[in-house]
């Protein structure tokens, strides 16, 4: 809700909707200065003075005696808190569950509040952009990783078939079908890809465990990577497929090589 109004009056209105039951979960209070938003109550430190509000009553000069790890403030029994003045440029309201936004906006308007009221998507737009940027970065690094894997396996197989050119020529001369030679190098490529995927997944699981226990602190909150089974299977399959394709081209060239050129060099 964007506004510049007496927030006590708003709280009085909200109390009718029964949405300010809990300081930390239902009502987040913001400073009155734009660009200095206080997320939750994190800007209030032990010993700070603040205003409290409950059931239409303003409690001044509340002193924060302690804040526990969950953000609960001790030193007040009020249901809403804010720092300084009876003015705020924005108030965030957490609803009991998703999907109630329109209903609550209508209810708030029905209380006679004329300020601009926006659903959470308006605020979350920035987060969406942030997540979108992360996803693009993720896709770019994923694509580069895939290209690297492709190039590495291509080079490995190319070097293998080049080093064994004469041997491949001899095998063809004694009657080994080129499909067998091609197949053997494709199996080799598959094994490289498969082992790479297994090792990569082990490292990924380790990183996931680490970042889950120690999330990355971001302005929007703690960020924990998420790896779904579908994503895991898709990327693993793509990597294995890329390995096979990477091995196919040099192997095919080697298996199609002229026998005498392969044996005697040409």
């Amino acid at each position, binding site marked *: 809700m964007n506004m510049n109004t007496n927030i006590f009056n708003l709280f009085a209105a909200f109390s009718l909707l029964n949405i300010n039951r809990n300081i930390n979960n239902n009502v987040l209070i913001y400073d009155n200065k734009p660009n200095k938003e206080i997320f939750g109550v994190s800007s209030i430190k032990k010993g700070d003075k603040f205003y409290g509000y409950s059931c239409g009553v303003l409690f001044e000069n509340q002193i924060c005696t302690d804040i526990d790890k969950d953000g609960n403030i001790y030193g007040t029994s009020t249901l809403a808190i804010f720092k300084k003045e009876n003015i705020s440029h924005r108030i965030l309201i957490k609803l009991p569950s998703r999907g109630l936004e329109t209903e609550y906006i209508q209810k708030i308007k029905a209380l006679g509040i004329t300020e601009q009221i926006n659903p959470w998507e308006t605020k979350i737009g920035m987060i969406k952009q942030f997540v979108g940027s992360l996803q693009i970065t993720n896709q770019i690094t994923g694509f580069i990783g895939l290209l690297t894997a492709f190039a590495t396996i291509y080079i490995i197989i190319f070097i293998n078939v080049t080093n064994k050119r004469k041997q491949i020529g001899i*095998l063809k001369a*004694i009657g080994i079908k080129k499909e067998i030679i091609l197949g053997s190098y494709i199996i080799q490529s598959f094994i490289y890809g498969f082992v790479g995927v297994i090792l990569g997944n082990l490292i990924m699981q380790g990183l996931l465990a680490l970042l889950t226990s120690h999330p990355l602190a971001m302005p929007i909150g703690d960020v924990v990577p998420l790896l779904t089974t579908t994503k895991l299977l898709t990327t693993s399959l793509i990597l294995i497929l890329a390995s096979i394709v990477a091995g196919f081209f040099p192997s095919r060239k080697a298996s199609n090589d002229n*026998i005498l050129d392969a044996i005697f060099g040409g």
Partner: protein
Amino acid sequence: MMKNIIEINKLERIYSNGIIKTYALRDVSFNIKPGEFVAIMGPSGSGKSTLLHQLGLLDSPTNGCIIIDNEDVSKLTDKERTNFRLEKLGYVFQSYNLLPELNVIENVFLTSMAKGLSPEDYNERAKDILEKVGLKDRIYYYPSELSGGQQQRVSIARALVNKPKILFADEPTANLDSDSSQDIINLFKKLNKEINQTIVMVTHEIEEGKKADKIIWIKDGVLDLSKKF
């Protein structure tokens, strides 16, 4: 009258480099009977290896006709030639070219395996032929653990494991000392006598050629009929 296992008629192999044509083989015709041990001899660059490559289906002639075991092999497709080599021909090269990652018996049964034989069959065949070439006690050795002569025996066993109609050998003793060379030629002679194996061998050594039933002399890409042994 015994039919020929190999019939060559007016064989030509021409290498073209722009407008310049080089005749590696010209108007070569001869026959080889089943069970013959034939040496192809001549000076360096005379075309004897080129001739062996045509006979062994490793290369295609520019003109002429090659009939092996009553089949005109000049008309075979690439795939058919590969299959023909696997089924009917065996090769021994100057360098042994065994797969270093495989042991002796695995190197030998490789072509039988590719042919689709059962493990029992190809193991039995490989053991039989390794016994014939005198390597019965080395079947689980790796190529790096064998002497040059022994490695060449393994490659001979590999060439013979599928019971080919013809065994081709391209200077099989060139990398060996004189004792090992003698052993290999004696082994060829023994296989020729004992299992009636047709052998076509390219060699520089006249003493080795003399062990053969007949020598085909070649010079400047044409048969040299002036020489006899």
